[in-house]
């Protein structure tokens, strides 16, 4: 396969691996027929696989599809060619974020979520909600308030984040850094053995 143009080396390398996986897609549409949100997508999952097969990565990364996935894995479970469609959509979300594609609601959510995990080692929902709404729909927070209050009353929202101890936090931070460093290092073509034992 030719080197993929127009992307950072890290993204090109990741896309290349994805393209290799979807090369065996036979376009049967089982994924789309199984997908609960396919009717709301601009490209059905099958059509997205086709974009990837055709090398139209930019279209794929712009698509609404990758942010409409609920990760229910129905497509993956049923794919007759054993393509891990759900995981591929997840990876495309990562590439869209890293490559600076326009921020969608889903993207805001992902960024805020991982930011919090990186900071505390654990989730802290109030901050997630605030960060999400500030960026996407400031008024939405008013709509969320009644349920938020109900949960607060039942003790289901904690007002303060639970942090890991310092040592653990340092480990988490190192994990994030190491993963990011590896992603950026954009390994050359993977060893074929890695491919088959995936």
């Amino acid at each position, binding site marked *: 396969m030719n080197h993929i143009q127009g992307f950072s080396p890290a993204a090109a390398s990741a896309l290349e691996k994805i393209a290799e996986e979807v090369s065996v897609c036979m376009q049967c549409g089982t994924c789309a027929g199984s997908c609960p949100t396919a009717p709301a997508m601009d490209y059905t999952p099958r059509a997205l696989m086709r974009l990837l097969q055709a090398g139209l990565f930019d279209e794929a990364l712009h698509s609404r599809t990758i942010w*409409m996935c*609920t990760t229910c*894995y129905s497509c993956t479970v049923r794919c007759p060619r054993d393509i891990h469609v759900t995981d591929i959509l997840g990876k495309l979300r990562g590439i869209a974020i890293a490559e600076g594609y326009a921020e969608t609601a889903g993207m805001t959510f992902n960024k805020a979520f991982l930011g919090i995990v990186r900071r505390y080692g654990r989730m802290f929902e109030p901050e997630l909600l605030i960060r999400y709404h500030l960026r996407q729909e400031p008024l939405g927070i008013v709509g969320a308030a009644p349920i938020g209050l109900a949960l607060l009353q039942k003790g289901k929202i904690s007002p303060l984040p639970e942090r890991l101890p310092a040592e653990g936090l340092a480990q988490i931070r190192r994990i994030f850094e190491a993963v990011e460093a590896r992603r950026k290092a954009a390994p050359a073509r993977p060893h074929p053995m890695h491919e088959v034992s995936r």
Partner: protein
Amino acid sequence: MNPLRYAYYPGCSLTTSAKEYDRSVRAVFDALGVELLEIEGWNCCGATPASQNELLMYALSGRNLAWAEARGLDVVAPCSECFKNLNKTAQAVRADPAVRAEVNAVLGDVSLTGKVRVKHPLEVLVRDVGLEEIRRRVTRPLAGLKIAPYYGCLITRPRNEFDSPENPTAMDDLMAALGAEVVDYFPYKTRCCGGALLLSNKRIALGMTRDLVIKAHQRGANSMALACPMCDMMLDPYQGPALRAGEKPLPTFYFTQLIGLALGIDPDQLGFADRVVSPREVLAALS
């Protein structure tokens, strides 16, 4: 025989929005003589956002698994999302030496050999403890409950060694063992609740949730058993917003709350009071 012992990974939700899940898992396992050792200093598995980078997901999950593996314990993870991430990680690390090496390189000070297995509480209860044993311990059969067993999508997907991804039956069998009537909830038992889109595409997500409630009513259920904090978020606090005016709400419970009830554990200890859709009516129907 040695008592059953597991490393316990509660996950973030079980400390907050799903605290009754946490309480009921602990209470039920305790009552059945299964020992849970909470993983010290556990961290978030990264949930769905971590799937944007497989290595990140493996590493975040792997840090928790390493603690268990070092102690020769298998891991129990009640939250479906955490279970999926942890289990995927364990499977990948076990199957592929290249992945293992990469994950260990990122983890740095801890490492994995791939021996550790991850189990959902359903599997532990049905397989390791056994339905027979649970049936034997029921002191308060759940007669009167007509339960729609709702597994959600992630317990048996993308793959898992203990139940079918299309038509799992473990929870059906478990609820039947408790003396409840189990309604045939296929194919909705694994249908997505929409939870992942709650913030970003609320309308679509609530539509998916509403469908689940309506189908459960159609099948004659008077309650629903859950096994996932995200499904719970949709089907308990957000059930009201999902339903249209005049539509009848359906009380939902974590399956472990129901087991606890049948085993005669004090309902307060199981967190029944924390439910948003009031369970009073249906619990009163318990003969």
